[in-house]
């Protein structure tokens, strides 16, 4: 009979060990799943985790791609983690990402074909403001009318998707695009493009912003009163109130920051790797970032590593599809296992296992 016993303080060893063990367990369970599907399990795991980094054919291309894929995930997840720590659940980063991209792209296209150097900084601000404004809807509804921010932010994703379709087929459509949906290409126009800072590195301005966000969040959480308030509000809401934390202000702040970062991520994506506003511009970064935030234990450095790890499984998963014929849903199940094992092992940092002897149980 196994019993859980709460630890007096969370185990530091488990906090670090659980993610590593989760990755190993995912490899084992995933390997079993691949074996059942008729694939060589070792080969599959190798293709997913190692080929993108070390295979001589792919590495030179895949390594920079890791940054391209991880950048928006990290940027969004950092914002989400602040709210999650305080018990404020922004599930609608996908919508804020979309609105940020539309606002930022709209700002840039409004000055087309100007190549003024101030346009791109303006686009970043417009993108951040767009995401911020979209997140303010659940924030204000929550603080004024006590609505549930989980539902409101999530449902606003579908509204944002409808606006995106409108933008791609209507108000942002490329006038020289023969009536087809999609905006002008921002990435190919100097002034509105988000280029690689060092050519061939995958490091565009959004990746840099993600790294800055990681450092800023780390400083905020460890060196700043606000960071303390955020942590306190999540762990002991009543104590936080006595300590003078203003819950309304915290909600507005956490949703605002996560919205702004998601909006910026959308802008960097639309002006860089994606290139244009299209009907299906959003590809789930806002939702995947929730996984990244939890995989990284809501810790800035953890999120950085988790973002890179998940990006690796995306890129390696594509390789597994085309080299081995592993079906796409199996890759998604594999990623799901990663989160499952992590959350399951999470228990062990707060609890320890006790084997009760039979006589006590009877």
């Amino acid at each position, binding site marked *: 009979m196994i019993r859980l016993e709460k630890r007096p303080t969370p185990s530091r060893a488990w906090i670090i060990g659980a993610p*590593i063990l989760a990755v190993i367990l995912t*490899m084992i369970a995933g390997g079993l799943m691949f074996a059942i599907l008729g694939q060589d399990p070792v080969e599959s795991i190798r293709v997913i985790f190692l080929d993108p980094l070390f295979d001589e054919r792919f590495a030179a291309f895949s390594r920079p791609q890791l940054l391209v894929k991880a950048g928006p995930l990290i940027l969004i997840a950092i914002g989400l983690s602040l709210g999650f720590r305080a018990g404020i659940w922004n599930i609608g980063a996908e919508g804020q990402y979309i609105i940020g991209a539309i606002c930022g792209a709209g700002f840039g296209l409004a000055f087309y074909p100007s190549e003024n150097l101030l346009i791109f900084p303006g686009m970043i601000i417009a993108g951040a403001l767009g995401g911020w404004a979209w997140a303010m809807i659940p924030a204000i509804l929550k603080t004024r009318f006590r609505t549930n921010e989980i539902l409101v932010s999530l449902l606003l994703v579908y509204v944002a998707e409808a606006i995106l379709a409108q933008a791609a087929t209507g108000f942002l459509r490329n006038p020289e695009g023969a*009536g087809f949906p999609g905006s002008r290409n921002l990435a190919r126009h100097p002034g509105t493009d988000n280029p690689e800072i060092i050519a061939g590195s995958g490091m565009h301005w959004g990746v840099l912003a993600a790294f800055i966000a990681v450092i800023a969040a780390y400083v905020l959480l460890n060196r700043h009163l606000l960071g303390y308030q955020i942590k306190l509000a999540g762990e002991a809401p009543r104590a936080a109130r006595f300590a003078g934390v203003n819950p309304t202000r915290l909600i507005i702040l956490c949703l605002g920051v996560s919205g702004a970062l998601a909006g910026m991520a959308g802008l960097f994506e639309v002006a860089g790797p994606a290139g244009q506003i299209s009907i299906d*511009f959003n590809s789930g970064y806002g939702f995947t970032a929730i996984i990244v935030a939890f995989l990284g234990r809501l810790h800035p450095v953890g999120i950085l590593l988790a973002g890179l790890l998940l990006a690796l499984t995306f890129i390696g998963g594509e390789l597994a599809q085309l080299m081995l014929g592993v079906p*796409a849903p199996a890759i998604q199940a594999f990623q799901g296992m990663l989160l499952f094992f992590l959350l399951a092992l999470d228990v062990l940092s707060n609890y320890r296992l006790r084997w009760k002897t039979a006589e006590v149980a009877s």
Partner: protein
Amino acid sequence: MKKLTSLMAGAALALGLGAAASAQDDSFQVGFVYVGPIGDYGWTWTHDQGRLAVEETYGDAVETVYTESVPEGADAERVMTQMILNGADMIFTTSFGYMEATNNVAARFPDVRFEHATGYRRDHDNVSTYSARFYEGRAVMGHIAGHMTESNIVGYIASYPIPEVIRGINSAYLHAAEVNPDVEFRVVWVYTWFDPAVEADAAQALVDAGADVVLQHTDSTAPMTVLAEADAFGFGQASDMLQFAPAPRLSSIMDQWGDYYVRRVGEAMEGNWAQADTWEGIGDGMVGIGEMTETIPEEVRASAAALRDSIASGAYHPFTGPINRQDGSVWLAEGETPEDGPLAGMDFYVEGIEGEIPN
């Protein structure tokens, strides 16, 4: 930690072996980039049928690889590049949204041939585009719908307000109105290609508005289920949807890419592949008209078949003047047919259709 390092070491060993095993590359490799899952029984499924036809035709001389559910944009570019690094000699990108990505990757790999479905940009010599004249099939569906409706209200589930979809509505309407001057079209825009719940809602809304025949330009079978309950009629889309025959499914408009894929892969293997802009219809087999069920009166089946055959032979163009635009201005004079250019960019309703195209 020890466990992890030994696992890494084991995997690193496997890396060396694997690299040696996959180094040989003598068969012609063709990659397919899909926007949805191959099990959607819609758009992506039809392209995968084309891939299977290539495999069947060329056997061991060809190796095909594919990646499913690839988002449009940066992800597509990465998938294509990885396919090429893995040895692909030719790549089919099967969604309009891959247009930028296809041309970007094609610029970097001039020796690889690219075939992009439904796009219009061929920035480099190694990029071809292809699409089907679905409006030819819509003409036949419209003809049947015009005969079959008793309420004189025909519903239309439209995906996005883009030329492809607008052209289909116009073609269906013209041929419905030709046999039934009292017919009215009700169009619902659902802003999706595949979303069973939304499509079902749209079908129900159209039935509630009095439609007894509904055409769909979305891929799921959900509207069929609604139509079956309402005793209304519909048409298969993308795939045959034969499981709903003999009613509500009266016939179907099918995407058939196999012949084209087999031909183009063959040309590439023989070294005589050249850039092309292909737009084929019923005559070339790219658009298929599914079996017309016995629910349709015999004389209508005969006239619909005659219409199909005259389009296939080229004797008749579904857009033959006189045709006016919705605002009454002249688009095509008596006997005139449109050039492919304006037809590809069609962004207006023809005269007789009510409502506005959203923008």
